């Protein structure tokens, strides 16, 4: 995105860079829907990816042999260039252009980091904590839900944070296959040689990523109250 913006900026130095009047007139029918579309794409993608990654991560942390193939598969998805993945998805019958193809691609990108963090989080639970839990008579289910997941949660949220920021960025490309979102503004701006749209789209996408990052960071801290408070042991 950076180079495109720069090229445009240089090209249009003679124009007024940001057309504030356009923003005032069009924010309701152009900008707000683009923002909502973008939030929709990102949120739904991360939510679906999480719904897949949590159970997969938990299963993989139990059946260790499944971890390498899962990592290879999700790693492979992660390395496919985004544009190529979108192109492949639209030619698959039943998917075609539109937000669904974009969501599938974004889910595919999120799996690697999410599954990895679920497994890392569960692995980080001290063995003696689990032994004590079992020794006191917690069932395997209770160990998972009352000990392992709460202790893994901050690490899982850290994964959600990385995935969300990545997804918000990549989602802009989704407009290329009519996925909507802020990418639509950017592509329109390029087509119409109208830098205001490009800048509004880019700035809002960046701001959204930053806000999501901060919110999730705050959540991560909130979920780790035992590390937040620092008091000297006496």
């Amino acid at each position, binding site marked *: 995105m950076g180079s495109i913006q720069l090229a445009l900026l240089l090209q249009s130095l003679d124009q007024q860079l940001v057309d504030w009047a356009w923003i005032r007139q069009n924010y309701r029918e152009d900008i707000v829907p683009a923002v909502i579309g973008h939030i929709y794409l990102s949120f739904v993608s991360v939510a679906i990816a999480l719904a897949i990654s949590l159970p997969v991560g938990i299963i993989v942390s139990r059946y260790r042999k499944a971890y390498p193939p899962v990592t290879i598969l999700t790693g492979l998805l992660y390395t496919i260039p985004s544009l190529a993945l979108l192109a492949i998805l639209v030619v698959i019958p039943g998917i075609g252009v539109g937000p669904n193809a974009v969501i599938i691609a974004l889910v595919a990108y999120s799996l690697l980091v999410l599954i990895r963090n679920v497994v890392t989080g569960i692995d980080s639970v*001290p063995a*003696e904590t689990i032994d*004590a839990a079992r*020794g*006191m*008579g917690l069932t395997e289910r209770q160990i998972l839900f009352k000990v392992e997941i709460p202790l893994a949660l901050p690490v899982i949220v850290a994964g959600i944070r990385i995935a969300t920021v990545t997804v918000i960025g990549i989602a802009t490309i989704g407009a290329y296959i009519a996925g909507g979102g802020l990418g639509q503004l950017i592509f329109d701006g390029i087509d119409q040689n109208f830098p205001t749209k490009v800048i509004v789209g880019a700035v809002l996408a960046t701001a959204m990523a930053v806000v999501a990052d901060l919110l999730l960071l705050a959540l991560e801290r909130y979920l*780790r109250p035992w*590390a937040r*408070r620092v008091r000297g*042991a006496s």
Partner: protein
Amino acid sequence: MIEFKEVSKIYPGAQTPAVKDLSFEILEGEICVLVGPSGCGKTTSMRMINRLIEPSSGEILIDGEPNTKMSGTALRRKIGYAIQQIGLFPHRTIARNIATVPQLLGWDRERIRRRVDELLELVGMNPADFRDRYPSELSGGQQQRVGVARAMAADPPIMLMDEPFGAVDPITRERLQDEFLRIQENIKKTIVFVTHDIDEAVKMGDKIAILEQGGILAQFDSPENILTHPNSEFVASFVGADRVLKRLSLLRVADMRLDPADGADDLPTIDERLTVRDALSQIVGVGATGGIVERDGERQLLTIKAIEGLLKDSGSARG
């Protein structure tokens, strides 16, 4: 009462058993210490009682019933469990850590709250200060106290303790041992206590089971008898060349019958609460042949000779 009947454990893939044909009985209200060198199967034996490990053969009876009669989780909720690594839940406050088993058993909140405070008091920690802290905000000794309190929370008749004071410095360990013995005097639990430290075994145990490599029971007896009559080379070398002195550490000056002292002003004064071993050390330390014990307003004489006599009549027990 806990009874091991011909219990063996061979881990999958292992050439030799970790525990072999173990048979012995732990009486109600007693502390039975499992002691032996590292890897001799102490932890394995202990964990078969609450079925964290299932034996390969043999059975374990609790109050006459096989411990397989109820589910493993139901069994474990009735048996206290404390380990060296403590394993407090880092994400739960001290109060909620201690409340773990009562919560599993469905106690109401008020009862749990009262029990938590009572236990914190019992292990010498001010409830108001500690109940809302997280484990990371406690020292090692405090964490071990909480570990023991958590194991006692639902007042289980049996407690399993695997090197429960193993992770603290020697001074703190001694204090925790003394405190625990004081608590046990009142609660009279049946306790299986694992340690690799023979001194701790002698101090804590009503009975000691010495295991040797391969999980074989080398000797099972009272500390006095093990120190007086080790039944094999292995036991003799495990209890150490200072076993005579160790016996003296089982006895307190207060338990000895002493004669009145007349004169002998130059002898050191001995506190009657000392162990005989410490008293002897104090006497020998100042180059004397005896010491003066003040008891019931009377001055009594403790001589090295009297201590020697103590060792000769071999069966003499505490109290």
